[in-house]
C-alpha cells in the first residue's frame, strides 16, 4: 500500500474522482499537493546523489603518460591531451623554447574548456570570461575562484611526460 493513500475499502477512483462537484476542489488541491511533495522528493534524491558522488569518489592515480615530443609543437603552440583519465582534458603550451606548461583544460568555475590566448599570453575561459595566468594557472580575472590544476611534466629522452596533477580537478 502506498504511503500516499490510507487503507480503505473504497476503490481508488472514488478518492481521485469525486462524484460531488464541491469535493472537486479538495481533490484538485490534494493531487496538486501530492505532485509538489513528489517534486520535493526528487529534489532530495538529487542532493543525495551529489552526496553519494562526493563520498564514493576514488583518489585518482597518476601513471606517467607521454604527452608530446620536445619539438612537436612550436613556441606559442598548443597541444591538448587527456590526463590522468581519458575524460580529463588538459592543455599543453610551449611558452618559450625550453619552457612547457600544462594545465587541466576544465575551468574551475563551471568546467568549460579553457584555451590559450597567444596575444595576451594567458588562458581564457570563453563561457564566462575567466582568465588564468599561463605562468602558474592562477586566476587573473573573472568568476573562477581557484587556479587551474597544473600538470607536472618531466623531460625524458626527448619526450614530455606527465607525471602528476597538482590541485583539485572537478
Amino acid at each position: 500500500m502506498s504511503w500516499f493513500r490510507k487503507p480503505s475499502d473504497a476503490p481508488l477512483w472514488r478518492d481521485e474522482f469525486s462524484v460531488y462537484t464541491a469535493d472537486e476542489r479538495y481533490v484538485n488541491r490534494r493531487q496538486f499537493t501530492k505532485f509538489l511533495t513528489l517534486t520535493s522528493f526528487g529534489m532530495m534524491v538529487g542532493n543525495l546523489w551529489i552526496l553519494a558522488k562526493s563520498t564514493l569518489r576514488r583518489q585518482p592515480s597518476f601513471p606517467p603518460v607521454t604527452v608530446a615530443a620536445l619539438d612537436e609543437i612550436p613556441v606559442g603552440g598548443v597541444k591538448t591531451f587527456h590526463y590522468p583519465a581519458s575524460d580529463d582534458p588538459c592543455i599543453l603550451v610551449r611558452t618559450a623554447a625550453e619552457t612547457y606548461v600544462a594545465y587541466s583544460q576544465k575551468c574551475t568555475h563551471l568546467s568549460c574548456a579553457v584555451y590559450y590566448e597567444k596575444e595576451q599570453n594567458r588562458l581564457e575561459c570563453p563561457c564566462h570570461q575567466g582568465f588564468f595566468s599561463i605562468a602558474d594557472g592562477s586566476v587573473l580575472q573573472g568568476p573562477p575562484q581557484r587556479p587551474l590544476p597544473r600538470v607536472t611534466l618531466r623531460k625524458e629522452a626527448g619526450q614530455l611526460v606527465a607525471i602528476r596533477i597538482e590541485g583539485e580537478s572537478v
Partner: protein
Amino acid sequence: MNGRPPQSRGLTAIDGAMVLIVVLLIVQIWLLSATLESYLAGHRDVAVPGAIISAVLFAACFCLYRFVDRIDSEVRKG
C-alpha cells in the same frame, strides 16, 4: 466564533499548507542548484549539509501533505 462552514475552513487550511509547501520547494530547488554548483566547483564539503537540509525540507513537505490529506478526508467524510 468562525461562522464559515467546515468545507470552506478546510479549504483555507489546505491553501495555507499548499503555500507553505511551495515556499519549501522553492528553497529546496535553490539548495539543489547551489549544492550542484559547489560540487562542480570542487567544494565537496557542502554535499553533507545540503543533503541533510534537503531531507528535512522533504520531511516538512511530507508532513504538510499528510495534513492536507487528513483535512481532505475529514471534511469529505463529514
